[in-house]
């Protein structure tokens, strides 16, 4: 019976072993000497939710850490000035996105002084009110640093309301090439643990479990040392197997619990945060520093000096690449984020944002673009899928534009992790099919919504026309009646006149 249960609910399902390429950068300390760029480009939306609203005007002088745009609505996050200088412009500038479509961006001309704004450092951060912690995290613009960029304060307050008992810290970092979390834990473990303690307090959770992939033994040791004396934080090694860093996979492996497909982690009393977020929380609360920089892994075959580097938000990627001695002629694909789920960017003149965990300059040999061949139904994709889907069946439906059939097969449970595309021997871009289909479904929904709206508008118009017609008719009838009445009156008067006339005539005759 236990064996059957294991088959039905394995702690680890699907997934793939990738060539990690992590040794390129995992042994080198984080570089902090990147010069302050002349110009910083800060998009007003670097998070899930509503874009922030700028509070500065062109020509304003700003100090480092000063608020540039405040958050709008419940799910949003503010952005701050990464360095001191003058606001040069608020324009539409290409976003770090595969389409490179423009996004509203605040441009700062830096003065090179890097002058902080004055702030009060909290004396006893671990005794702050939980609500206060959430507020401070929210005001600092902290978002999920693992790539999801969901505003952290929202997640913390959601946690407080939902009686959270466990905080999971996701330090899987399963993506190939990425080592920014690895280095962060190796070098700043104490700060990370501080952040975790603040999160626990902010949510009122009892315990935290940190999951670290077993290909990062140094980070594991550093973290163990840092939370040696803290009873309610445990660290667990997890197998190196992509996508271990999928939050639901991490949760299932660490605890055996599974989140319902239509629910959130909070539904079962758990909140999952990235380890980088914990560090950002520490900086926000203990040092009163908003999220204005992040550690970025710069790697790939075209990079001369692969490294982890602390970059100010808004620095153009091209400047970071120059700093790392990138051979531009060798770049076949520029990727923001990990090699599995990251976005390919059309050019490097886009800013580093809060979600930029890595900049990968990959060469032709790194990516290999083989020809797409027909599916041979080898079912490798089914074995690899961590969500238990049938990628080959879904893709064949989508190719025939039968999106509803694909949805029935579970398209909405796809997490776009890329395992299926990775293993496909025919090199079918399965993930792109699913991304396309999801977008298309959204579009269809919008069209349907519009169609309903159109119907309503058309009905309104018809009703109005009908009403106008009736009113006109009523008016016409009234006019007609009035005219008829007048005519009758006139006739009557006429008749009376003729009646009177003979009398008069008689009278006249009589005279």
């Amino acid at each position, binding site marked *: 019976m236990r064996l059957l249960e294991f088959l039905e609910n394995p702690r680890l399902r699907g997934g793939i072993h990738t060539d990690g390429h992590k040794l390129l950068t995992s042994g080198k300390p984080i570089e902090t000497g990147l010069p302050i760029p002349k110009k910083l480009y800060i998009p007003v939306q670097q998070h899930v939710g509503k874009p922030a609203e700028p509070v500065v005007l062109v020509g304003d002088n700003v100090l480092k850490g000063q608020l540039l745009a405040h958050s709008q609505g419940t799910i949003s996050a503010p952005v701050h000035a990464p360095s001191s200088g003058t606001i040069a412009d608020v324009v539409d500038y290409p976003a770090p996105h595969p389409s490179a479509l423009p996004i509203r961006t605040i441009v700062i001309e830096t003065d090179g002084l890097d002058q902080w704004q004055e702030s009060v450092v909290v004396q006893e951060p671990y005794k702050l009110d939980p609500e206060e912690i959430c507020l401070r995290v929210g005001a600092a613009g902290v978002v999920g640093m693992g790539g999801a960029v969901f505003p952290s304060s929202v997640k913390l307050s959601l946690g407080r309301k939902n009686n959270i008992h466990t905080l999971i810290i996701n330090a899987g970092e399963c993506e190939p090439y990425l080592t920014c979390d690895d280095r962060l834990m190796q070098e700043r473990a104490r700060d990370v643990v501080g952040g975790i303690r603040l999160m626990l307090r902010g949510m009122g959770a009892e315990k935290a479990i940190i999951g670290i992939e077993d290909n990062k033994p140094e980070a594991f040791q550093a973290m163990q040392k840092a939370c040696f004396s803290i009873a309610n934080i445990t660290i667990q090694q997890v197998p190196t197997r992509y996508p271990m860093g999928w939050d639901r996979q991490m949760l299932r492996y660490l605890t055996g619990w599974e989140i319902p497909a239509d629910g959130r982690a909070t539904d079962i009393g758990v909140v999952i945060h990235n380890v980088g977020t914990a560090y950002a929380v520490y900086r926000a609360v203990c040092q009163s520093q908003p999220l204005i920089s992040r550690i970025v892994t710069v790697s790939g075959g075209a990079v001369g000096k692969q490294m982890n580097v602390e970059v100010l938000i808004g620095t153009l990627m091209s400047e970071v690449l120059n700093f790392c001695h990138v051979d531009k002629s060798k770049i076949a694909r520029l990727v923001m984020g990990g090699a599995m789920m990251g976005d390919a960017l059309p050019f490097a003149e886009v800013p580093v944002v809060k979600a930029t965990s890595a900049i990968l300059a990959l060469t032709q040999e790194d990516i290999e673009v083989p020809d797409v061949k027909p599916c041979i139904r080898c079912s490798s994709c089914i074995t690899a899928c961590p969500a238990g889907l049938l990628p080959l069946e879904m893709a064949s439906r989508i190719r025939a534009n039968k999106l*509803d059939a694909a949805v029935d097969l579970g398209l909405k449970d796809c997490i776009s992790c890329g395992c299926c595309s990775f293993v496909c021997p025919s090199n079918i871009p399965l993930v792109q099919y699913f991304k396309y289909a999801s977008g298309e479904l959204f579009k269809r929904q919008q*069209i349907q919504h519009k*169609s309903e709206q*159109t*119907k309503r508008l058309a009905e309104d*118009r018809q009703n109005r026309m009908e009403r106008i017609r009736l009113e006109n008719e009523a008016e016409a009838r009234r006019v007609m009646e009035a005219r008829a009445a007048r005519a009758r009156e006139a006739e009557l008067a006429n008749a009376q006149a003729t009646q009177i006339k003979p009398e008069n005539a008689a009278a006249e005759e009589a005279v």
Partner: protein
Amino acid sequence: MYILFAIIILTTLGLVLGLSLGVAGKYLKVESDPLIEKIEALMPGSQCGQCGFPGCKPAAEALVAGTAPVTLCPPGGTSLVEQLAKLLSIEVDLSQSKDAELMVARVSEATCTGCTRCFKVCPTDAIVGAPKQIHAVVADACIACEKCVTVCPTECLQMHPVEVTLRDWRWPKPLAAAA
């Protein structure tokens, strides 16, 4: 003798069944085809006439009669085609169908005379304005029926493709293998 029995039995059977079919056909007749109403409910209902029929109801009737293809309605897009095909149990090859590029009408301020003709024909009241004043199109309500374009005396109303923004950018469909 057996043959006679067989003939009698079969004839009676045929008569009884035929009679019952006739009775059923007369008394259980469905007054109006519910399918037409269902289809009409799916359609945009703006009576825009892009399908070549005077309105959505005639189009639905034609669909049920089988005289019009399920791909007749441009504003409905692929999603409508898929739903119609399902409802009418027709197999459609959707792999080649492609939604037309989304268009929206726009008024050029320089040439608009404020003649009000356009907003009188707009089926969704998407054009606002007053006599002798420059009109404007509410992009959200415009269904790109192009009725306004045909009545505009100064050609100031033109169709433009809807601009893609970061918010509604979508992944393109991958190219299939050549086989």
